[in-house]
């Protein structure tokens, strides 16, 4: 039970990193300026490294029958457990950077807590990841404040992005039997405890950026059960194309 829960927990963490990495890499050559192009693709590289480490551990938990590459490139849509917010299209830069703020703030608190895990591998991944996430959070926060408290146009775009993305944030804190099993064993993180911290943090950034969080309302859900938006299928068809067309291709 614990073993299977841990495996699924790793898929969740790994898929979150993998799919957001994919989205951010789409900014390559399309950034608003060269420096930001590099920043976003740097984030993508941080996340692909994290995905590899976590999926490799997931693979080991299952006796190494499937490698981390198999897990990344040969699962189908319903077998992915990334949060819906990671697979949403980049939209304009406002949407990308608000998404980054929401996710990086979550990851900041999540990996801070995961450093207390009694699982040595997850603990090591948390320590390494936290350094990267702190930078992502600083960078995203600066942009949100700069653009929120910027021009009429930038403020409007930021507020539109927040209004659109907000309904995808509830899912970050959803917990099921996998979570409770791992919390009991001292392995996993209690997401319920993170939510108020995350909310306060986001509120503060919104205040500094002269932006407003929407009223609490309907929240999207599904990824814990492998149910996704229409966008994940499109990502996978592109991301997995090579492995699907030329299995085991090497060069």
């Amino acid at each position, binding site marked *: 039970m614990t073993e299977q829960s841990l495996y699924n927990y790793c898929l969740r963490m790994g898929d979150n990193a993998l799919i957001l990495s994919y989205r951010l890499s789409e900014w390559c050559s399309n950034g608003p*300026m*060269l*420096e*930001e192009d*590099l*920043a976003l693709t*740097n984030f993508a590289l941080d996340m692909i490294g994290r995905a590899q480490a976590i999926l490799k551990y997931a693979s080991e938990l299952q006796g190494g029958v499937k490698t981390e590459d198999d897990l990344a490139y040969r699962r189908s849509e319903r077998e992915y457990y990334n949060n819906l917010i990671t697979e949403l299209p980049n939209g304009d830069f406002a949407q990308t950077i608000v998404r980054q703020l929401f996710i990086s703030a979550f990851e900041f608190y999540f990996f801070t807590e995961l450093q207390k895990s009694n699982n040595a591998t997850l603990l090591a991944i948390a320590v390494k990841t936290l350094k990267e996430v702190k*930078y992502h959070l*600083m*960078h995203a926060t*600066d942009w949100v404040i*700069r653009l929120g408290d910027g021009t009429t146009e930038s403020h409007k775009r930021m507020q539109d992005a927040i209004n659109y993305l907000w309904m995808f944030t509830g899912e970050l804190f959803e917990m099921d039997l996998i979570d409770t099993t791992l919390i009991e064993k001292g392995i996993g993180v209690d997401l319920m405890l993170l939510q108020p911290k995350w909310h306060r943090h986001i509120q503060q950034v919104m205040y500094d950026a002269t932006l407003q969080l929407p009223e609490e309302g309907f929240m999207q859900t599904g990824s814990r059960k492998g149910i996704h938006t229409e966008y994940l299928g499109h990502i996978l068809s592109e991301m997995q194309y090579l492995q699907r067309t030329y299995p085991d291709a090497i060069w």
Partner: protein
Amino acid sequence: MTTDTQLELWEVFMQSKPGANYIHAGSVHASDKSMALQNARDTYSRRGEGTSIWVVPANAIVASNPDDNDLFFDPANDKVYRHPTFYVMPKDAKAI
């Protein structure tokens, strides 16, 4: 001439290890100090090149004028006695 939409120019200096000289790495565009530092980090320190970064607004740098090169630099060319190698070391002074 088209308008420059690329924000202010900043010059980037990197220190490769503690105590080493800061060496000019290149330049970045940014609207403020913190953005300049982050852009410099993302542009020039992705492969472990440094342990410290300075960013300086390019317009704060005062440069010599190439037209002044003869009065600035030429007088140094014929003063060999300004180089330590000009002087012969005494044979017994080994530890200098």
